[in-house]
């Protein structure tokens, strides 16, 4: 009888542990990059299903475009805009705006969300702002969008969790009310406007180009990526891979870190020990860049040129330790733009059909402008939120 009880306990435990595995695994994207993902350096880069030459060329060209809009308000600027009329959506205020958010699952989205809320508070003509948070789940966001279209929203803003899965829900919403999509796109042009910065190719290329310029020819570079199969991250790496191929640098490793600082620090330490040092580090996101910097410090070797992002902890480490670094940004100020776009659309003013925002890259020359030592470590300097009420307290400063 004891034995039977034990067997059942073990059975339950195995099932439970298996559930846990499944739970963990569901956070991981499809391993679309295939088994070669571990060291993608060997693969023929043109094979990547995530590479689109035309889009790549378009993004790199947009980096040099002269933005249309006020210079000190980049969230109102548009690159190469083609304006569309919105007369058909004009109505009198006050307005009821609705927002379907993919979720608040990382500091980038938290900072963006605070910025968006503050922007909404600036406009008395927005009488009501209804928000549903999908918590990173496609199915929840689909029902969120359906629920919001059934309410008396004047306009719906969507930040899609994933592109393909959310497309039908957005398309259905377009038939009921004007829709604005931002951050990640959808596979339909029915939204009045789609707002985003230039994109992942430009982001990835900026860091790789910096390394190609600052690292000695023949230098050994380690590439750190969060995880395979996420389109925005794949674009960043695809562009960097191209830049590295055309350079004299040797990519000695491409490692996935799941955005875990301990993994980053351990991985970099391993490479320092195996290769007797590294000449450069490329990262597809900056949340763990300080961990990479510390790995060099703890090994007692100089920190080589490194790419990060606009998080405060990295900018401060860069400043205090005199790093050779660059911080491409995927600006959180884009969370302000959908609110402004919504008011323009409801006011009958034209908006860019494809609203491409500038995508600043923080360099040594502009570092001082973005240093905000009193802000939290994971605050994004490109929030464009400094002029908003309750700054810095509402952002944790």
């Amino acid at each position, binding site marked *: 009888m004891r034995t039977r009880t034990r067997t059942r306990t073990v059975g339950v435990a195995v099932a439970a*542990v298996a559930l846990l595995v499944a739970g963990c695994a569901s956070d991981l994207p499809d391993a679309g990059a295939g088994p070669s993902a571990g060291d993608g350096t060997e693969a023929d880069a043109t094979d990547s299903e995530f590479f689109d030459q035309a889009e790549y060329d378009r993004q790199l060209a947009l980096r040099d475009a002269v933005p249309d809009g006020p210079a000190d308000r980049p969230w109102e600027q548009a690159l190469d805009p083609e304006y569309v009329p919105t007369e058909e959506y004009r109505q009198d205020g006050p307005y009821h705006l609705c927002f379907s958010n993919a979720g608040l699952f*990382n500091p980038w989205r938290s900072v963006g969300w605070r910025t968006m809320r503050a922007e909404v508070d600036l406009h008395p003509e927005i009488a009501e702002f209804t928000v549903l948070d999908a918590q990173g789940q496609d199915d929840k966001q689909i029902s969120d969008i359906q629920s919001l279209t059934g309410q008396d929203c004047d306009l719906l803003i969507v930040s899609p969790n994933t592109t393909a899965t959310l497309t039908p829900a957005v398309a259905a919403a377009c038939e009921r009310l004007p829709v604005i999509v931002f951050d990640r796109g959808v596979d339909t042009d029915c939204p009045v406007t789609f707002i985003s910065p230039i994109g992942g190719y430009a982001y990835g290329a900026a860091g790789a180009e910096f390394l190609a310029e600052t690292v000695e020819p023949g230098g050994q570079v380690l590439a750190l990526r969060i995880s395979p199969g996420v389109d925005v991250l794949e674009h960043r790496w695809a562009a960097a891979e191209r830049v590295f191929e055309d350079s004299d640098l040797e990519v000695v490793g491409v490692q996935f870190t799941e955005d875990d600082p301990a993994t980053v620090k351990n991985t970099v330490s391993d490479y320092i020990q195996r290769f007797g040092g590294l000449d450069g580090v490329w990262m597809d996101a900056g949340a763990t860049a300080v961990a990479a910097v510390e790995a060099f410090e703890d090994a007692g070797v100089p920190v080589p040129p490194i790419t990060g992002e606009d998080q405060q902890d990295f900018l401060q480490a860069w400043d205090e330790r005199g790093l050779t670094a660059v911080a491409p940004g995927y600006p959180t100020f884009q969370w302000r733009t959908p609110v402004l776009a919504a008011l323009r659309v409801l006011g009958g003013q034209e908006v860019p059909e494809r609203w491409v925002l500038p995508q600043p890259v923080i360099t040594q020359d502009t570092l001082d402008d973005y240093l905000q030592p009193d802000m939290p470590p994971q605050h994004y300097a490109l929030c464009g939120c400094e002029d908003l009420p309750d700054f810095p307290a509402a952002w944790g400063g």
Partner: protein
Amino acid sequence: MTGTGRVSDAAHRRRIPAPLAGLRAVAPVLVLLVALLVALAVVDPGFFDPERLLAFLRRSAPLVILAAGQYLVIVSGGFDLSVGAVVTTGVVVAAELFNLAPGLPWLVVVAVLLLGGLLVGVVNGIVSTVFAVPSFIATLGMMLVLQGAVFFWTQGAPRGYLPEDYRMLGRSAVPGAEWLPWAVVVLAVVGLAAVLFMRSDTGRTLVATGDNDVAAGLAGVRVARLRTLAFALSGVAAAVAAILVGGFTGVSAQAGSGYEFQAITAVVLGGVALGGGRGSVVAAMAGAFSLQALFTLLTLLGVSGAWESAVQGVIVITAVAVGGISWSRRSRRTHQPVREPV
């Protein structure tokens, strides 16, 4: 013989000298660990440099400490799924404390964390014993409560930095012995304490409780109190891990994610029976070292991080399946005669 079940000890004592009986419980995982270390040496000959071995020990410290705590809970017949969330909470709370009171002595924060871990463990223990909620559910609930609270508090972006003196235990070396990281010292202390605890009467009673709580209760063991103690020690172990993890890398809102599962995997890998009553704490800690060695090997082989959890899942299922087979055979062979007098 540390922590080997009381009953099986009794069974073996007649034929096998006690130290060897203990070795028998640890042997399979040691074989695995040695095999992984050999594989590491083949893939990367420099792995056995003393400096790198110590780096490996330091890296393994949080998981080994968590595995020791998890062992106490599992061998007494429960589960502790909350340890990963305790690690995350510990890291975030420490940063928030230093944010609110920048001049706070680091030992105070360490004490707050240890007390917090103890408290979480005691609540886990009371909920699963006094209120008879299965520990799997009780600690799962605790995990969700802590995760939600951390998220609500930080809104996904933790505030504050961890100062250098607080980070010393996880990051720096012992002054005067620059080759020796503090984390390895902490690991040695916790490991030794765990072994001594399991050799004490309380430790042996804990195993007996996991093996058969009714019999233990009839024999005068205060089952609820003992199990609560196991959860409390697991909570403290998680707090120690939080201090090391936070010290090693600084603030992260995902600092402890996945640790609960890795700790359970490590314990299972050490041959400890889920459901309790069998297994040694040394084997559980060796299981943690094996898991860390495996992760290192996968990284060296360039296996993508996405495969890590898949490999981990296969290991857990295999280890439990293999353990289950040998257990049922052995129990028929050696345990039934012992049970008869009971």
